[in-house]
């Protein structure tokens, strides 16, 4: 794939030194602990923070190189923050038309374009409202339309769902998934689900350095950095949706609690925590649980708790019960998990 963004940046004051590239149409998730330098990286790319050293080229345009730096308004880089930050004195439509107007688009055309982008994020009915009258989810939807209306070469998203209610985040995530498709974007997130559903690639930053960079699935399933491990630390099974859960290509059926009506036959990911998994030596009977036959590959003890790994799956049980079960690598065992503990997300 052709490269859209190629950048390196060193910010001495915050001990950040990174180098990364984004392919055209690729969405990259940037993850890492607080203060790792994720937001600083976005600030550098948006033109709000000046790096001490490095350069960046976006679609053939030099954003910065040594002392020379393009101002934020000339970069073609959109920024969507945690808060919507809609201009309170403008209507929703005027907010979205703001970018095109700045680019010199005539008023009528800018408004038409704003209407189109509002439709794109399912917010067409909000056009005449004032920002103060919108809910958090609605405002963020409008903010997405406003950022996209400038048709940026690169869209930066700084934890766009973090400030939203748990009940509205999934809908906006689906909208983001739709509009980010085929768009060069970098999304900073703490949520593994965001990375899984929105990004093609994950970069993990820790202590101002990139410690991991790879396709989302492989980083989440086989984390190499301790941060990715603690973050990923979840079981992930992909397949297609069936009425009560997910069916994998190998014929494994995983029952799940479906919070909302999901369309059937769609690609989906089932996610559950290792803490929700019980380990048995004999196949458990008579309980409404999902049972997975596995071969233990690895044991890892952290004090009173032990992580039992079987390929990509893991269970976290007390060290006492691990001893009692007498599990060790190579042993055949069964992992069981309640359907209520399994979440399903459309891919």
């Amino acid at each position, binding site marked *: 794939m052709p490269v859209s963004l190629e950048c390196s940046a060193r910010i001495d004051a915050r001990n950040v030194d990174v180098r990364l590239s984004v392919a055209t149409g690729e969405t990259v998730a940037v993850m890492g602990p607080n203060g790792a330098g994720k937001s600083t990286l976005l600030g550098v790319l*948006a*033109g*709000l923070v000046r790096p001490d050293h490095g350069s960046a080229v976006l679609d053939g345009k030099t954003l910065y190189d040594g002392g020379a730096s393009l*101002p*934020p*308004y*000339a*970069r*073609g*880089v*959109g*920024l969507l*923050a945690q*808060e919507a*930050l809609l*201009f*309170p*004195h403008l209507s929703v439509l005027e907010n979205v038309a*703001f*970018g095109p107007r*700045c*680019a010199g688009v005539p008023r009528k055309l800018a408004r038409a374009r704003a209407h189109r982008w509002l439709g794109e994020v399912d917010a067409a009915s909000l056009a005449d409202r*004032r*920002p*103060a009258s919108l809910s958090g989810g609605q405002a963020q939807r409008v903010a997405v339309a*406003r*950022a996209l209306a*400038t048709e940026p070469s690169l869209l930066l998203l700084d934890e766009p769902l973090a400030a939203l209610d748990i009940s509205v985040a999934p809908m906006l995530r689906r909208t983001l998934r739709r509009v980010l498709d085929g768009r060069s974007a970098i999304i900073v997130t703490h949520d593994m689900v965001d990375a899984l559903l929105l990004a093609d690639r994950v970069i993990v930053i820790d202590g101002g350095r990139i410690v991991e960079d790879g396709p989302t699935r492989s980083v989440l399933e086989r984390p190499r950095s301790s941060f990715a491990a603690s973050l990923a630390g979840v079981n992930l099974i992909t397949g297609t949706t069936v009425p009560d859960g997910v069916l994998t290509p190998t014929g494994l059926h995983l029952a799940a609690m479906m919070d909302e009506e999901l369309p059937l036959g769609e690609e989906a990911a089932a996610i559950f925590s290792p803490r929700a998994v019980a380990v048995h030596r004999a196949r458990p009977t008579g309980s409404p649980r999902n049972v997975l036959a596995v071969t233990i590959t690895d044991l890892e003890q952290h004090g009173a708790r032990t992580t039992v790994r079987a390929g990509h799956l893991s269970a976290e049980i007390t060290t006492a019960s691990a001893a009692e079960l007498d599990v060790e690598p190579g042993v055949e065992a069964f992992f069981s998990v309640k359907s209520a503990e399994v979440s399903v997300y459309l891919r």
Partner: protein
Amino acid sequence: MNAAYSGVPRWLIAVAAAGALFLVLPLAAIVLRVEWLRFGELITSDSSTAALLLSLQTSATSTVLCVLLGVPLAFALARTRFWGQRVLRALVLLPLVLPPVVGGIALLYTFGRQGLLGESLRILGVDIAFSTTAVVLAQTFVALPFLVLSLEGALRTAGTRYETVAATLGARPTTVLLRVSLPLVGPGIVAGAVLSFARALGEFGATLTFAGSLQGVTRTLPLEIYLQRETDADAAVALSLVLVAVAVIVVALAHRIQEGDAREP
């Protein structure tokens, strides 16, 4: 409505009441002292109306000047960083604490005939001292810090998050200023302008020193009141009440404009 527990000690309320009384009592004293039978006649005399009109006209002009000069100054102080900024801020606020008569002398030695710029101005055919222009300059000099101070505070409170968003949407600095920053701090500008107008209206010391006291040219209402006090105390009291009324109307008006802004976000 039931009052919630406020946690304010009672003795504090008592002191607050004494403070309020200290401010309100003198106003009451004026109202009580007014010779109501002659009130109309006193405030409509030639010299009184001339002074009132001159006051309103010069105060309005200096308020406009304060906005034109003060808004950029407040932005520069709140939103940029440069060498000597702290010193400049202190100097800008100096007229707040300076005795106005000192301000008048300073202006005289700047714009007066013997002043720093006086010679150059005279060559250009401009003679400022003891003219209506001098009144406006004196009022602007003492009123400008009020606008700068209140707007700078509003700018700092507002932060620059909206400006940042506007820049990433492709807005150049001038567009950001006109379409985002100024509308957002509109109420702050109105509040600052009102303070400036009120200060300009009450200006006395700098005006007398720098502009003198010529009826219809430089004798504003405060100067007229001071002059009348010597000859006709009743007229001075009546005019004082007029000045109080004008001040109250202006403050109330500004309050309504700001309330309106808050209601319709």
